[in-house]
C-alpha cells in the first residue's frame, strides 16, 4: 500500500473495505496500534474503549459478509470530541465537573454516524466546555500539535484535529462556536467544516453558546468532509433550532459543481496582525482560483473588527446561562464540603470549573446583569445584525469568500497566557458563527518551519454543496493534504 492504512482517506478505505482487501477489524486494529504508539506524545484522547471499538468493527464486518454493508462510512473509525454524547461512553467536556459522567443516550449526530456504520471511536480532548483556542484549557491534558509537539493544535477541538493529522482516527467530529473546528483544522493541516447554523442537530452536544454552536466534521480531504456532513446533516425534532433544509448528496455534488465561481476577498481579513507566510499562502490560493477562471472581487465586511467583541458578549452570556445547569445536584461534581443546598452550588462550581470557564461565566453574568444588559448584551446583538448584514450584502455579488483561517500558524504552548490575546486568535472565524454561515478550512501550504497553513472559505447559508465544490477545486490542484507529520 502506498501509505500506512491509518493515513488513508475514507474514500480509499471504503474501496478497500468493499473489495474485502482489508476488514474493518484490521483497520481498527491499525488505528488502535497507531494510537497506542504515539498518543503519549500527541495526547489527543481523553480516553478510548478498545473492546467497544473492536466490537463495532466486527459488527461492520458481519454486515459486509452478509451483503448488508452501508455506505462509505461503514467500518470507518471516526473520533468523537468529548463534548458529543455516545451512549455508555464517558462525556467529560474535558472538565472536572463531568470527570465521571457517562452519556445515557446518543447525540443525534452520533446516532446518524452509527446508522451509517461508522465506528464511534474514542473521546477526543478539547478546551474545557469548548472554551479556548489551544486545547490548553482542558482540565486533563494538553494536546500537542503533531507537526511540532512544542506547539498547540488549536482549539477547542484540538484533540479531533490532532488525532486526524496524526493518524489516530480516519476522521472526527468536532464542534464550532467561534472557530473551534476550522482553527484547529488549519493548525493541524486537515480539513474542517463548520456547517450552517441549524443544518446539524445539536441534540446531545453539551451546550456552550446555543445560538452559535454547530457540530461538524474533520477529514483528510474535502470529499471525506462531504461524506461525513451528508451522514450527520438533517432536521431533528429533538433540536428546536434544527432547520428543515433539503440535504443534497454532497459527495456527488463535488463532481457536478464545476464553477467558475465569483469569489470575494475582504480587505478587512488581510489587515494588521496577519503572519506574512499565512498571507503569502492564501494569496497563492487566490491566484490558483484566478487561474481556474474564477472571478475574484474585492469586497468589504466593514464590521469585521467588532466581531471578537460581539462574540465575547454573546457567547459568554449564553454560556453563563447554559452552564447554570451544573449545580452539583442532579449530575456532575458535588462538593464534599458543602453543608446546604446553596453551599453545594457555590463550592461544586468552584471546584468543578477551571479558570477560563469561570472567567466566561462571570463575564456573561455581568453583561446580562441588571443595569448592564442594554449597554452590553443588547448592543452586541445589534452589532451582530450589522455583521450578518455585511455578509449577506457581499453575497449579492459573490458566491463565497476566501480568507485565512487563522492569522498565524500554530503557536507555542503557553505563549498566550493572556485571555484577550487568545481570544484574538479567532478573529477570522468568529464572524461566520455570528452570521450563522458555513465555513471550511483546508490546507493551503506550510510555513518555512514546517507548520500547516489553512485557507478558509466562507459560503452562503445552506449552500454547503457549493462550498465543498469550491474547496475541492483548490485541493485537486495541490498535494498539501497528502503530507503527514513524522512522529
Amino acid at each position, binding site marked *: 500500500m502506498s501509505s500506512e492504512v491509518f493515513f488513508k482517506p475514507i474514500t480509499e478505505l471504503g474501496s478497500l473495505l468493499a473489495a474485502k482487501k482489508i476488514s474493518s477489524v484490521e483497520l481498527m486494529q491499525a488505528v488502535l496500534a497507531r494510537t497506542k504508539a504515539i498518543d503519549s506524545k500527541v495526547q489527543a484522547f481523553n480516553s478510548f474503549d478498545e473492546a467497544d471499538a473492536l466490537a463495532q468493527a466486527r459488527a461492520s464486518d458481519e454486515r459486509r459478509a452478509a451483503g448488508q454493508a452501508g455506505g462509505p462510512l461503514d467500518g470507518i473509525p471516526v473520533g468523537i470530541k468529548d463534548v458529543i454524547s455516545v451512549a455508555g461512553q464517558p462525556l467529560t467536556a474535558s472538565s472536572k465537573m463531568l470527570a465521571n459522567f457517562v452519556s445515557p443516550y446518543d447525540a443525534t449526530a452520533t446516532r446518524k454516524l452509527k446508522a451509517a456504520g461508522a465506528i464511534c471511536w474514542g473521546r477526543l480532548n478539547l478546551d474545557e466546555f469548548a472554551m479556548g483556542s489551544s486545547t490548553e484549557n482542558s482540565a486533563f491534558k494538553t494536546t500537542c500539535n503533531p507537526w511540532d509537539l512544542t506547539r498547540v493544535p488549536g482549539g477547542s477541538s484540538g484533540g479531533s484535529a490532532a488525532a486526524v493529522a496524526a493518524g489516530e482516527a480516519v476522521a472526527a467530529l468536532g464542534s464550532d462556536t467561534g472557530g473551534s473546528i476550522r482553527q484547529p483544522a488549519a493548525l493541524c493541516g486537515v480539513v474542517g467544516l463548520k456547517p450552517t447554523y441549524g443544518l446539524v442537530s445539536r441534540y446531545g452536544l453539551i451546550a456552550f453558546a446555543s445560538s452559535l454552536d454547530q457540530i461538524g466534521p474533520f477529514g483528510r480531504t474535502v470529499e471525506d468532509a462531504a461524506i461525513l456532513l451528508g451522514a450527520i446533516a438533517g432536521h431533528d425534532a429533538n433540536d428546536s433550532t434544527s432547520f428543515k433544509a433539503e440535504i443534497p448528496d454532497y459527495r456527488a455534488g463535488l463532481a457536478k459543481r464545476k464553477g467558475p465561481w465569483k469569489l470575494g476577498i475582504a480587505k478587512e481579513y488581510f489587515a494588521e496582525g496577519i503572519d506574512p507566510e499565512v498571507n503569502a499562502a492564501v494569496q497563492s490560493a487566490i491566484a490558483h482560483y484566478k487561474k481556474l477562471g474564477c472571478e475574484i472581487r474585492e469586497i468589504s465586511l466593514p464590521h469585521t473588527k467588532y466581531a471578537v467583541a460581539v462574540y465575547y*458578549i454573546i457567547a459568554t452570556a449564553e454560556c453563563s446561562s447554559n452552564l447554570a445547569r451544573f449545580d452539583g445536584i442532579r449530575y456532575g461534581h458535588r462538593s464534599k464540603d458543602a453543608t446546604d443546598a446553596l453551599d453545594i452550588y457555590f463550592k461544586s462550581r468552584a471546584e468543578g470549573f477551571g479558570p477560563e470557564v469561570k472567567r466566561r461565566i462571570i463575564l456573561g453574568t455581568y453583561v446580562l446583569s441588571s443595569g448592564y444588559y442594554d449597554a452590553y448584551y443588547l448592543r452586541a446583538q445589534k452589532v451582530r445584525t450589522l455583521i450578518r448584514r455585511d455578509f449577506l450584502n457581499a453575497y449579492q455579488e459573490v458566491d463565497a469568500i476566501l480568507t485565512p483561517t487563522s492569522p498565524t500558524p500554530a503557536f507555542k504552548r503557553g505563549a498566550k497566557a493572556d485571555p484577550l490575546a487568545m481570544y484574538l486568535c479567532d478573529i477570522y472565524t468568529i464572524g461566520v458563527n455570528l452570521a450563522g454561515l458555513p465555513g471550511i478550512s483546508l490546507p493551503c501550504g506550510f510555513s518555512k518551519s514546517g507548520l500547516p497553513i489553512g485557507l478558509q472559505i466562507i459560503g452562503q447559508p445552506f449552500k454547503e454543496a457549493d462550498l465543498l465544490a469550491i474547496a475541492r477545486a483548490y485541493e485537486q490542484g495541490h498535494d498539501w493534504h497528502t503530507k503527514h507529520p513524522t512522529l
Partner: protein
Amino acid sequence: MSQPADLNLDHVANLARLALTPGEKARFSTQIGDVLVYIAQLKEVDVSGVEPTAHAFPLFNVWAGDVPQPGLPVELALKNAPAQRDHMIAVPRVVE
C-alpha cells in the same frame, strides 16, 4: 490595565453562584477588566434603528406533537447523580 469601576466581582460571582478565592478575584478582576475595555469599542458603532439578532436563522413556534414517547429508564436517568436513594436524588435538607 485599566478596570471599569463598576465591575463588582463579589456581586457578579454571587449571581453566578461561584465561590472565588482571593487569588482568583485579583486575577479575574484584571483579566475581565481588560476584556471589558476591549469590548467598549462597540460604543462607537451606530446601532440606531438596528434590530437585535438572537439567532441567525430564527424559527418560531416549533411544536412537537403531544404524543407519549419512551423516556430514559429511572436507573439510567439517575446513573450520573452524585447521591441517590430510593430512585430519588439525595440532597441536604432544604426545609426546617
